[in-house]
């Protein structure tokens, strides 16, 4: 890999592993703080950050565990740095309490979860897609997060940048929900020149008394100052008013705060949601996929076309917030929707909820050993449904 003297953004074409592309995406997005703890299959992100961050004026630290890692990331974010951690299922579970803290305190940060087979230690080196619901509901209480799903090393780069941008705009933790296949796969990655990379930064307050935890409409995001700049910030995970004062019994203050931190994502969902749509117009059958599994769906679409079957494919780059309108649109056009996932059914329930009676929804589930759902398996399910 070539490294320029001040190589912050390594513009050009590279042959990179997904985990490396993720780390480079973070650096390109302006990430200057990484805290992590070794875990397969995400360790390569920490290793690459350890090598690269000191060269671009950043800090990389290996903490004592994943709880400490996400804690340090939140501390660094309030110190004014763009900050990230990377882990896999077991570490992601440990981080959940502080992901909730980041939601409640509206702290921008990026958490990469390179999914592996669970539950528990499971099969540490093998791919799975079992953390979809953990990413959505892993922390307690009402909250919204943004979850992105890359399906290639290129997207490990692109969506990590996007994750930083969204977290800065909405002051929310953003999860890059990768998987072992995408994380460990080597592929071509194109890094654009710096001027072509869109970078978003958190909005700063215009004056010292501007409230930083509300005092605005419920779709807006308050400005975020940093610690050490004279704001006398009160930052707390307890329910707080717009100036940060704890209000631990007042029902109205709680409703106002939590409804706003939920609505700033829900009511801006259209701006956040990012999907790839194939053959929506003249589809015979629908497939909804994400992450590594979508790669098999691309092949299945081609195989089906050879048999004269048009497969309408929606590939989610944003899993949460869930693209309800787009999925409903597909349901109006087809009788059947297939949801292949490397778990025993997670996203499929969300599809069922949204589709209702408009179409028949069927899961294709496969777990264990990191075995992907093959294009043939998807095609076979498609044919079975159409022959009914």
């Amino acid at each position, binding site marked *: 890999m070539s490294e320029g*003297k001040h190589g912050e953004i390594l513009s050009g074409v590279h042959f990179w592993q997904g985990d490396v592309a993720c780390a480079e995406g973070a650096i390109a997005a302006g990430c200057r*703080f990484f*805290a992590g703890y070794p875990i397969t299959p995400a360790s390569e992100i920490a290793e690459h950050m350890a090598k690269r961050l*000191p*060269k671009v*004026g950043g*800090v990389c*630290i290996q*903490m*004592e*565990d994943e*709880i*400490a*890692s996400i*804690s*340090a*990331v*939140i*501390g*660094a*974010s*309030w*110190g*004014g*740095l763009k*900050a990230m951690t990377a882990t896999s299922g077991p570490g992601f579970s440990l981080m959940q*309490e*502080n992901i909730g*803290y980041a939601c409640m305190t509206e702290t921008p940060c990026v958490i990469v979860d390179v999914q592996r087979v669970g539950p528990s230690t499971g099969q540490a080196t093998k791919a799975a897609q079992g953390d979809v619901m953990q990413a959505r509901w892993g922390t307690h209480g009402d909250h919204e997060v943004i979850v992105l799903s890359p399906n290639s090393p290129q997207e490990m780069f692109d969506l990590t940048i996007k994750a930083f941008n969204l977290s800065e705009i909405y002051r929310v933790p953003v999860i890059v929900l990768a998987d072992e296949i995408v994380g460990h796969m080597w592929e071509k990655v194109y890094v654009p020149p710096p001027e072509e990379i869109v970078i978003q930064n958190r909005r700063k307050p215009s004056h010292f008394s501007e409230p930083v935890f509300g005092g605005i409409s419920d779709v807006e995001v308050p400005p975020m100052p*940093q*610690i*050490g700049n*004279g*704001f*006398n*910030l*009160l*930052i*707390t*995970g*307890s329910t707080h008013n717009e100036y*940060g*004062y*704890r209000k631990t019994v007042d029902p109205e203050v709680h409703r106002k705060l939590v409804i706003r931190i939920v609505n700033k994502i829900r009511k801006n969902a259209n701006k956040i949601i990012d999907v790839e749509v194939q053959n929506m117009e003249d589809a015979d059958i629908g497939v909804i996929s994400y992450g590594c599994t979508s790669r098999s769906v691309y092949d299945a679409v081609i195989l089906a076309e050879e048999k004269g079957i048009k497969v309408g494919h929606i590939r989610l780059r944003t899993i949460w917030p869930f693209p309800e309108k787009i999925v409903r649109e597909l349901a109006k056009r087809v009788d059947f929707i297939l949801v292949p996932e490397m778990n025993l059914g997670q996203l499929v329930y969300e599809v069922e909820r949204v589709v209702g009676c408009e179409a028949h929804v069927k899961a294709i589930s496969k777990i264990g050993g990191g075995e992907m759902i093959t294009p043939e398996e998807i095609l076979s399910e498609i044919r079975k449904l159409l022959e009914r």
Partner: protein
Amino acid sequence: MTKKHFALKFLREETLPTAFCPGCGSGIVMNCFLKALEELGFHDLSGFAFVSGIGCAAWCVSPYFKADSLHTTHGRPIAFASGLKLARPELNVVVISGDGDIVGIGGNHLIHAARRNMDLLVICINNFNYGMTGGQVGPTTFHGVKTTTTPYGNPEYPFDLARLVDSAGANFVARWTTVHVRPLINSIKKALKKGGFRFIEVISQCPTSFGRRIGKHTGKDLMIWFREKSIHISKIQDDREVNDKIIVGEFVNRDKPGFVRRLHEITLKLREKYDEN
């Protein structure tokens, strides 16, 4: 005109009086900390950032200190503070929190930050129990004491916090009680002038949740007991001689470079290598 209390310039006056129980020792610790700053010539808390966790002691800084404060999840203030210090190395980052928070649920972060010699001042207010939740046994509760979760007596033994943090590698370790106001102020001043990991344990009274369990019903009863129970580290040869005493004093005062400085040195070398190329 009456003269304003010196500490008020460091406090958010609109938040006073504090929510601490009558007789609580946390106010004494706040007073000592702010007195140390006063004596060092600080007029405000602008160069400081305070981090605390969950529990009564965590409230000293949030909301009472007129400063930036990060009131974190339970047990994690040292880890949050580490990230903040690395992001803003020019800030004086101080953690003030309780024994349950820093040593119980957060004990791992404490020993690792000490091992790294992370540039933080940590003041641990040790009241021997989980006060806010109703007086449960903690990692600092004496053997045999009845608490709400050890109704038949505590079968465990407490940590010796000062020795623990000393052996983990901290640059500075002291232990005082709320009776030792002057030496505590002096230790805080000394610690504030140093880099690396600095740890001050302050034994503090909790009459509400703990004192009454051991027959000390008021803050005053507990403070008299602290005075009787304390022995200065210079007066002992061997810890075994003083088994049920509280050893107070400064345990260690090292001058190892702190984490931030070591990281800075590595980065500088890296830059030089770059510039040569």
